[in-house]
């Protein structure tokens, strides 16, 4: 009787691992392995590194925001990276948004408020394409969830540019060679080099550090609930384990007189 039970558990384990390793993936260069990084938000007890998140926001604001929108985020969400209400108000006020119509029926611009969504760099996709040689810089709100590998992929992509393509590969007009991008030819120029930003907290802005920080920030932007989810999950699992152990004891007790 134990035998079919074991077999089936084995089979179940096999499917799960198969699903994990073999399901065909989304945009990622064929045959390259992503370096796995030790993110602070990995694992059952993982949380975001606040300093890294805030530096990452600085990178987004100073570098990426000129091309990429982050339209699922509102300024008020920045409380999630540890910014105070006043800081958020100040950040929002740096951006202009269109509002209206006013009493006279005219649209007008005003400084953004914490409740506004992040202002986008372009009015629409066509404007974004025109400014980028026909390539569309995608919205980054869910980027960390929309690519296999998540933050690992983002870090690898942002540091995976090659000065010159390998022999035998000719790049199309306006394209760069990137080891990790699907098809290896990417329309986005390497967005930063060493010291591209000057961190307010004095952290040395190496290329690797910048990539780590922006990846952390984007991982949070895609899963702002991550910390709460894991915290609650630990409690739920502990509760269930105790409850199940008790149910097992009761089951033994109830069935005792039968055996």
């Amino acid at each position, binding site marked *: *009787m134990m035998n*079919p*039970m074991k*077999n*089936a558990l084995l*089979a*179940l384990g*096999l*499917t799960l691992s*198969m*699903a*994990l390793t*073999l*399901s*065909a*993936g*989304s*945009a990622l260069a064929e045959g390259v392995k992503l370096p796995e990084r030790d993110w602070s938000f990995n694992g*059952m007890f993982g949380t975001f590194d606040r300093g890294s998140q805030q530096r990452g926001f600085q990178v987004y604001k100073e570098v990426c925001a000129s091309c990429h929108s982050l339209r*699922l985020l509102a300024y008020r*969400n920045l409380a999630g990276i540890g910014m105070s209400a006043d800081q958020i108000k100040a950040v929002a006020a740096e951006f202009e948004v269109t509002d209206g119509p006013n009493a006279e029926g005219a649209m007008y611009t005003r400084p953004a408020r914490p409740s506004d969504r992040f202002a986008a760099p372009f009015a629409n996709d066509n404007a974004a394409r025109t400014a980028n040689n026909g390539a569309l810089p995608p919205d980054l*709100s*869910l980027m960390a*969830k*929309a*690519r*296999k590998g998540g933050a690992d992929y983002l870090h690898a992509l942002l540091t995976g540019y090659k000065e010159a393509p390998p022999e035998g590969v000719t790049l199309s007009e306006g394209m760069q060679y990137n080891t990790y991008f*699907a098809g290896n030819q990417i329309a986005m120029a390497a967005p930063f080099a060493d010291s591209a930003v000057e961190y307010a907290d004095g952290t040395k802005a190496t290329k690797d550090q910048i990539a780590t920080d922006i990846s952390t920030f984007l991982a949070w932007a*895609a899963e*702002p*609930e991550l910390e709460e*989810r*894991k915290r*609650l*999950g*630990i409690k*739920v*699992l502990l509760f*269930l*384990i105790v*409850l*199940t152990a008790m*149910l*097992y004891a*009761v*089951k033994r007790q*109830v*069935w005792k007189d*039968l055996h």
Partner: protein
Amino acid sequence: MSNKFFENPVIKWVEYRLPIFSFIDESVGSGYPTPKNLNYWWNFGSLAGIVLTILIVTGIVLAMSYTPHVDYAFESVERIMRDVNYGWLLRYIHMNGGSMFFILVYIHMFRGMYYGSYKEPRELLWIIGVFIVLAMMATAFMGYVLPWGQMSFWGATVITNLFSAVPIIGDSIVTWLWGGFSIDNPTLNRFFSFHYLLPFVIFALVFVHLWALHVHKSNNPLGVDIKGPEDTIPFHPYYTIKDLYGLGILMIFFMFFVFFAPNFFGEPDNYIKADPLVTPPHIVPEWYFLPFYAILRAVPDIWFISAKLGGVIAMFGSILILILLPWLDRSPVRSARFRPIYRQLFWVFVVDCFILGWVGANSPDAVFHGIPFLWIGQASTAYYFAHFLFIIPLVSILEKPKMPPESINAAVTNKGAAS
């Protein structure tokens, strides 16, 4: 339920007018006799029922914040994730609940195949089960379209396009299904409507399933009939507590995914909003459809039947063939425990299903150690059908089964001799 309970005047008053308490007692209480030797494989049916309930409850609450419109669906799901209180929890429970439901029901079905639960007098019970899986598949397929991500859109495109394989009227059927000339807002709206309706149809089917179950009671690991009261124990408290313990184990497994790997069963591409102009490099369905997807793509052009039509026939046939199982299997012995050959072949069949799932996850053009996936898919598809059409009928006639015990009670009181 104790007699004391039925002596309570309020209970008596209600019971006289509507015998609901004795109905409950005879369905899942002390008045329902159950074989005393059921093992843990008999937990999966009630677990599936609980997960179905969880799916319906979370689904109804999700629908309160979801907008079935091509311009807003994707954003409304993200609003649920970000702005609705515990919306992320609701959505992750619903998403992973779908996968749990299929895991449980697939195990439940393999259980039935191993212990011969589909045999006389439980044929209708089994056939209702087959309709339940079909309804589950339709529900899950349409539910996956609702978040309007890239896989939602392209998965729906691939699957609905299959109907164009029907001779002559195929294209008209597809236009009719879509409510237009492409997958668009009308399609999304009707899918939402059906996704809300079908779970209640499943619920009704489960009710009929249980009605049939309660006529001849559960089968059991020995596959011998209940001969008398000495073979049974009351459902309550014995199986209520056993089912609750099983539920605890399931919940630990289920909640692990919900809280720590919520997107494990999903595809990253579904976090990209649907774009009719950009085809994803690999279109894959959810994991529980992978074996059927492999069967769909395995069939070549045969004579005047196009590969597409043949694939569709094979795919639906692979499920519908289960309806015939009670008559394909001629063996008088139910449980595989007493069928040495069938028992081996059962496990070969299980492995074949896993191979099909693996093939379904890969592009047919891909190769595995020099062997094209297409060939692996064709071989395992052929084996799938051969299992039902040749292996089961032949083995059931040729195999010499071992002698099952006289009765459940005889085997249980004489432990060791049976298993």
